[in-house]
């Protein structure tokens, strides 16, 4: 087995290692891009158990969300904000399994305007897409996506986003669309779903979250910044 095919064993890496360390892999020869300290960084979390993704898939997702949402003075990286956890849990949920989606045949290739027509559920789609993405990455760069240096990851994601990356039997553009959408959900949704750790994104925006009762404030704060410690559903449960 080559280095590229050695599976990632997070539990062997030990506790307390943040997502960025996982993303750089075990035998990285190129240095990871220096990252500015994250604003309001939460304590580096313990690796969490995975529900739907395997280690390789999880490593891909961590690398991808950290590229889509890099750490900077505005927020920690995507994975440090729990976005990879969010994605794993959503894929394991009923939605990930295809609930509330018409799956009767016949399955025909339609026009883009006719929407999604594949037989794959969201979790099946993501897994097939990650496999296709890594295969393309190996062909193009010689290694899996999560083993690429930060600048190459940006380059790779741009190519996938534009549909320029040729995935075998899979639509790169559609895959990016789904990955991007789930990343945004994971960054901005209520933390009860595993993402938006410590309400980092809400804090970043100035979105107050709950209880969202403004009747007595809307006049007073017209054209005035409303500053409040964001609160989530859990804070009210």
């Amino acid at each position, binding site marked *: 087995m080559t280095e590229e095919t050695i599976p990632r064993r997070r539990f062997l890496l030990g506790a307390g290692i943040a997502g960025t360390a996982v993303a750089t892999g075990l035998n990285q020869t190129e240095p990871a891009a220096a990252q500015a300290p994250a604003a309001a960084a939460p304590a580096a979390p313990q690796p969490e158990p995975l529900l739907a993704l395997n280690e390789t898939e999880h490593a891909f997702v961590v690398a991808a969300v950290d590229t889509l*949402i890099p750490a900077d003075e505005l927020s920690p990286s995507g994975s440090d904000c729990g976005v990879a956890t969010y994605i794993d849990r959503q894929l394991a949920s009923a939605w990930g399994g295809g609930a*509330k989606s018409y799956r009767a045949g016949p399955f025909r290739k339609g*026009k883009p305007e006719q929407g999604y027509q594949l037989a794959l559920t969201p979790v099946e789609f993501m897994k097939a897409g990650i496999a296709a993405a890594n295969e393309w990455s190996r062909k193009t760069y010689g290694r899996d996506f999560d083993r690429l240096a930060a600048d190459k990851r940006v380059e790779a994601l741009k190519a996938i986003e534009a549909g320029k990356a040729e995935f075998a039997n899979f639509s790169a553009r559609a895959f990016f669309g789904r990955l991007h959408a789930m990343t945004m959900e994971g960054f901005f949704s209520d933390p009860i779903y595993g993402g938006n750790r410590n309400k980092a994104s809400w804090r970043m925006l100035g979105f107050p979250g709950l209880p*969202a009762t403004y009747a007595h404030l809307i006049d007073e704060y*017209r054209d005035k910044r409303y500053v409040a410690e964001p609160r989530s*559903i859990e804070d009210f449960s």
Partner: protein
Amino acid sequence: MTITLKETDAVVVGVGWTGSILARELTKAGLNVVGLERGAKRMPRENFTIPSVRDDLKYAVRQELFQDTQLETVTVRHSPGETALPIRRLGSFLPGTDLGGAGAHWNGMTWRWLPSDHKLRSHVTERYGKSAIPDEMTIEDFPVSYDELEPFYDKFEKLCGVSGKAGNLRGTKIDGGNVFEGPRQNEYPNPPLVRSMAGEIMDKAARSLGYHPFPAPSSNASETYTNPEGLTLGACEYCGHCERFGCEANAKASPNVCILPALLADQRFELRDYAQVKELVYDKAARKVRAVRYVDTRTGEEYEQPAGIVVLGAYVFNNVLLMLTAGIGEPYDYRTGKGAVGKNYCYQVSGNGIGVFFADKEINPFMAAGAHGVLIDDFNGDNFDHSGLGFIGGAWIQAGPTNGRPILTRPVPPGTPRWGREWKQATAKWYNHAFGIGASGCNYAHRENFLDLDPTYRDALGRPLIRMSYNFRDNDYKLAQYLGGVLERLARAMNPTIMGKPNVKRGDYNVVPYQSTHNTGGTMSGTDPKTSAVNRYLQAWDADNLFVMGASVFPQNTSYNPTGVVGALAYWSAHAITTQYLKSPGPLVHA
């Protein structure tokens, strides 16, 4: 094995807005009414509470309260020559389900048609000549005038406690209201909602251009309010979680708040939830729907419910499906133009907008109600001269975010990347300093926009899915282009730090991005049984005891959100049933 039940006076198929209104009016007239609702008996107190009601992912993104396409959906093609494919995941429109239907989680924009909308073909012909309406644009006059419907508009608005400012009170135009509206007999039941920052900016800009801005007519109650049913609505919290969410304050008018508590307490009404209606039992010779067949989805048992009167309140697609599968009326054939069931399907020309960014203003988009902006009607209907423009119809134009929920609402200036450091910088920078101006264009009927039965795909009950043949047409694109110019003018007049480019409807109809749940047509109302499915009282021409509710009776769609008209027409039809039909059952209109 179907179990036949004892006959009841009336059955209402679907208990949303129209089902609730009809059931209430008929029980008040002394009838025993059974309401068949395929979904669950969902009531605000249990289902819409803090904190869970503020779950953006669950309600707005995962569409928790909407129809399950696994059980039933619609197939779509652009033109009759193509193969229609199923909408596997909801996107462009989000049909509701469960008790109260979409009325439990709509935004609350509550309108009346313009007087000219009621007489569209006549009005346009009179003003611009016959050639102004292309042959393939199959618009028609509505067989009820604005003046006839006015008391019923008023009734529905009072039911909902609509917040707004009249612009035409018994003929007198009032500045600050919509001066283009038809004359109202009464002021709105509630004063307008408190204006947002975006609304204020819009108001100033519109006035500076000589337009006539007014507050959105809103079924989000601005104050606590007791309606004529004796039911009380709370005051809007401006929580910014309106569309797609239930309202924990009972401020958003819904059947669940405005009618159902009274209806459910009435002995003459029986609600059957988990009752999925399969088909109507139609006696063609007798011109009557004898019974409604349904499945109790909790047990799998099939029932046949005989009824004296049958009301279809099952939303556009199921209204059409039930008529087509029962063989009531003649199915529309686009080749010959004959038949009326499925004809004149229309939608909305929405998604026209422009973004504006203000470095020095705090917009606070998260303090918002569902129907909250400031609007102008100067470019709606025939409120402006269309001579030489090459299209007819128009759009209301609104500024005022309904939410600042960050999963989906994060405006950034044009050219901003969609991810990475620059994306994050721009998102954080502009989140509280931007909003969009939007225009909702009318959609006039076209001979090749219609509904029929799909030959290939079926729903979970084995019935064919409704097939939608639909695309935007020349009139729609020309209107959208024109609106782009108006949007740009308004945006400029706001003097923003950054102004986006106007984004107007172009290209083929795409089922993926959300546009609007204003699907209309398919069982249009008219004066001629050969070219319409129901008469002016919404009574089916071919089945005297069948009354069809909802926007499926529209001959075309105006710019306005349909619910105000839908509610008024439901009361109008109920009035005809209780004052005419019950005394003398039979056709109410002799064509």
